[in-house]
């Protein structure tokens, strides 16, 4: 059963083809790893799925509905949640309020309800000191807050864009555990990473992008032995 299906998606920026004919299927309650070298189009794909960019051609079917032309905020409300690679938390709000924004607008909750939900989610992710000023957070806390914010929109599908970058091994482990925990709540997750190790540990299935095209798909073990992937990812053998 697929929650999100992408058919033949193409997106160009001027002359540059960032995505060309990408097909992708997210199955219910799985963790999909989306990997690829720098400039492969991973973040562009996330942006097209979440509606920041409209595709030049192709279709995006979410939950049985065609959302190809829907604006970003509508997709969020339908249930596509995401995090950002470069997190720019709202400096004028504290941690809890930042998370509240998600439930306020993602699910249209009232202020009180949003606050309660945000508290719940923060607790779920182990985010304490929620009245804190944003500027004094650690990297891990910021990452958690970003995830909490996305979760607060109550998504069916969660797109995590390089959520591990900048974390040390122990912290990354903690986040990996959290992602698993989130999945156990019944969510479908797509993890974008370029660190193979994390993908290996975390995901059920892997999709490899290179120069805007899907070059491999399958279990980590299969994909990681695919010669196309190896040469794309690790460079041509010298």
């Amino acid at each position: 059963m697929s929650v999100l299906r992408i058919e033949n998606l193409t997106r160009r920026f001027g002359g540059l083809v960032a995505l060309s004919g990408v097909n992708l299927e997210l199955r219910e309650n799985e963790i999909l790893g989306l990997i690829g070298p720098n400039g492969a189009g991973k973040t562009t794909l996330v942006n097209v799925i979440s509606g920041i960019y409209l595709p030049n051609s192709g279709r995006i079917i979410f939950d049985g509905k065609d959302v190809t032309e829907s604006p970003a905020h509508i997709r969020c409300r339908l249930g596509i949640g995401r995090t950002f690679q470069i997190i720019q938390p709202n400096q004028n709000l504290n941690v809890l309020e930042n998370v509240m924004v998600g439930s306020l607008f993602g699910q249209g909750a009232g202020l009180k309800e949003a606050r309660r939900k945000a508290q719940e989610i923060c607790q779920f992710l182990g985010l304490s000191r929620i009245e804190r000023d944003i500027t004094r957070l650690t990297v891990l806390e910021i990452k958690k807050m970003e995830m909490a914010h996305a979760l607060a929109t109550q998504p069916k599908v969660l797109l995590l864009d390089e959520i591990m970058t900048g974390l040390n091994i122990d912290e990354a482990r903690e986040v990996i555990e959290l992602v698993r925990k989130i999945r156990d709540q019944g969510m479908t997750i797509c993890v974008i990473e370029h660190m193979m190790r994390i993908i290996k540990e975390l995901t059920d299935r892997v999709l490899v992008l290179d120069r805007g095209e899907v070059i491999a798909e399958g279990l980590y073990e299969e994909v990681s032995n695919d010669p196309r992937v190896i040469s794309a990812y690790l460079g041509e053998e010298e």
Partner: protein
Amino acid sequence: MLVVKGVDIYYGKLQVLWDLSLQVGKESVGLFGPNGAGKTTLVNAIVGLVKPANGEITFGGRSLLPLETHRIIREGVAVVPQERELFPFMSVLGNLKSGAAYIPGARDKIDERMRFIFDIFPVLKERLGQLAVTLSGGEQRMLAIARSLMAGPKLLILDEPSSGLQPSLVSDLFRRMREIREKEGVSILIAEQNVRQCLRAIDRGYVIENGRVVIEDSAEGLAHSDHVRRSYLGL
């Protein structure tokens, strides 16, 4: 050459470097540590973007603390920051020239330096007229290193040179650093998370954690250190 001695640095109330000391002679030195350990802060302190509360930083016997950043650079310290800090709408040539144009000793030797750089990074020669913003991530990193080499520095500091690069490029990059060290005789300080790859390029290294030096050892020693393995190599 570069001596950092007992440096404390605060961001507001928060202390990020604690009594930190290290030295770089005529050698390549690695500076390792997880994210948030204080590597970038130390680099910024050396080039004068952050001022320490206590301690001393000297270069060739001269204190760098009273100098502004551009003065420090003119003293012969070149830095390749993590964000590269290129001039996006300037051509590759313009970027390279800017590396030498404001350094008293280097501005007359632009052609000579340029030849040296094309030797190490031949790809830049092909891209000479292109705007920096149109280069790929790896090419931009090379340009940033090349630009700092244009100054003919005595000390080259690289901050996280591998970040954002695909693995195949990273090993290539460190190979070139070795080459630069040998050809130029320049001292190098590399702040890096990626210990394993970097060890090839350095003679000696420091590991810092939470703003303190915890290990100082040769490259060989670091490669076999259990502590390093445990916390960074993920083994």
